[in-house]
Each structure stands twice: as structure tokens, then as C-alpha cells.
């Protein structure tokens, strides 16, 4: 049982996803759990519902999971993955409308203080304003 919101990073590129997760770990620390996925099942660019589902479940917390995505398909596939979670878990997982790298760092910084999922997403989404 963790008491911080977890972060999931979904990029079309496995390297971008890993890089963003590395930035979160190095800048914010280890107390916020971060999972990432990127690329299709053959190593090319793309996103994969099964991989997103796995990433969400790897860091799932009833406190919440904030999902950061890059381009269109990443969002569509993440929405699909969220709907496929077991009953009662979907509502604790939310996609943040924020740039993937900056949003992930901001979301994790907010999460580190024990903030709610709503506050975590608001901080990530507030980044550009």
C-alpha cells in the first residue's frame, strides 16, 4: 500500500518513455512509483494497449495513477487500457493533458508530497500556463 499517486509514461518511442521515466527518478526521486512503456510489440514506433495495461497495473495504487501520453494514438490506447482495468480501478487512473516529459516531472513532484490525483493532474496540466 503506497500513499502517493503513481506515474505512467506512454510514448510512441520506447527510448522517449524510458528517458522521461529516468528524468522523473533523477529529479524527483524514488518515492513516487513510475512505470513506462513505448513502441509496438516489434520494437518499432507505436503504442500497445497490452503494454499500457501492464504498466498501469505494475504501479497501480488506490491513491491514483496519472498517465502522461505523447501523440494521438498514445491517448486513444491509454483510454482503452484504462477502461479494461478491473471494476473499481478505472476511476483511479487519469490521463493528464500535459506535455509528456515536463508533465511527468511536475506530476511526480506534486505526487511526492502525497497530493491527490486531482492535484497531481492539475499541476501537470498547469505547466504551460
Amino acid at each position: 500500500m503506497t500513499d502517493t499517486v503513481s506515474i505512467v509514461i506512454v510514448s510512441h518511442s520506447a527510448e522517449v518513455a524510458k528517458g522521461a521515466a529516468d528524468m522523473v527518478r533523477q529529479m524527483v526521486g524514488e518515492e513516487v512509483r513510475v512505470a513506462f512503456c513505448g513502441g509496438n510489440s516489434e520494437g518499432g514506433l507505436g503504442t500497445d494497449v497490452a503494454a499500457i495495461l501492464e504498466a498501469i497495473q505494475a504501479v497501480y495504487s488506490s491513491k491514483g495513477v496519472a498517465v502522461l501520453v505523447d501523440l494521438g494514438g498514445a491517448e486513444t490506447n491509454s483510454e482503452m487500457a484504462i477502461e479494461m482495468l478491473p471494476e473499481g480501478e478505472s476511476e483511479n487512473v487519469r490521463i493528464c493533458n500535459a506535455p509528456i516529459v515536463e508533465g511527468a516531472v511536475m506530476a511526480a513532484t506534486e505526487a511526492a508530497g502525497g497530493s491527490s490525483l486531482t492535484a497531481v493532474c492539475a499541476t501537470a496540466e498547469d505547466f504551460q500556463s
Partner: protein
Amino acid sequence: MTAAQVTLSLQRLIEAAQATVAAHAEELTALDQAIGDGDHGHNMVRGFTAMQAAAAEIAAQPFGKALHKAGMTLVMKVGGASGPLYGSLLMAMGKAREDAPTDSAALAAVVQAGVEAVKARGKSDAGAKTMLDVLVPVQAALAEGGGIAAVRSAADAGLAATKPMLATKGRASFLGERSIGHLDPGARSCALLVHAVCDVLEEE
């Protein structure tokens, strides 16, 4: 369309869908290279091949559950946004009805549920240069009681209409005006699948 005609052999439908996707994979990829990221043919083949591998298991289920399982297979295997879009289409059709529709009105209602799910998933509608430009007129043809010929021509007209369109959804929308003059790959794959379904219906 008679009751006998809409009591489809799901196994044959899956085989026909896989065959048409495989036969046109290069064409879909070429269309997608022009305005997308060039993986549509490849992704569709992967998804429909996985569906065919599970065809016996899918076809053994009643209509609703079978479509749900077929849709889920596409969601998990296609990769890219086409997986959730085609998957949502089939899953919503399966959710709309437990048993196979027995008349064209019931079939139109089932397809309607699927089309609405695609709109919701893609946050889009006809006119944005997507698969919905084929699905929406096909559904309308069914709802008007049109036969197989009407469905086929609705799919063809819908597909052709995507060529001069400006893409406002999906990857192609990044191209802005440069998306004009190309057929939409998703609309093309959708039209191919409509024709494949019509082929099976005509044989039965």
C-alpha cells in the same frame, strides 16, 4: 437481406477479413506512408492474423460474446490507434446484442452501436478523413434498408470522399493541407472489410 443471410458464419467472416487485409497490406502501408506513420498495413495484418488464429474459439461463442472477443483480440494485437478503434467497433456491436441480428433493421442497430463507439473512442465523426467516413454512410445505407449493393456503394463513395478531405484527426492531421489528395488508410481498410463482409453475405 433475409434472416438466413444475416445469420453469419463468423468463422468465414474472420477468414474473409484476414484474407482481404493480408492481400492489401502493401496498399494500406503505402497509403499510410503518404499521410501517416506507414504502419497501418502491418498492424492490421498482425491483428487480423491473431483473430484468425482464435477464429474457432471466437465462432464457438454466441454473437455478442464472439464480437467482444474478436474486438478484444484487435485491441491487444493491432498496436497503434487502429486497434482500439476497430476493437471498440466490434466490442460495442457485441455489447448491443447477445444473439445474431435476424433482420436488416436489427443489423443496422448493431452497426449503429459500433459506429457510435468508434466516434467516442476517436472523438471524431464523419468528415475528418477517417474510417468513420466509410462507417457512417454504410450504417445509413443499412438503416435505410438498402441491400448489399447499396452497402457496397456507400462504402466506396465514403472512401472516395476522403481523398479531397483535410484531415483533422489522427496522425494525418499534422500534415494539414498536405493531407488533401490522399485516400485515408483507415477508410480504405474499413471499405475493404465492408466488401469482405458483403462477399460472405452474398455467398450464403
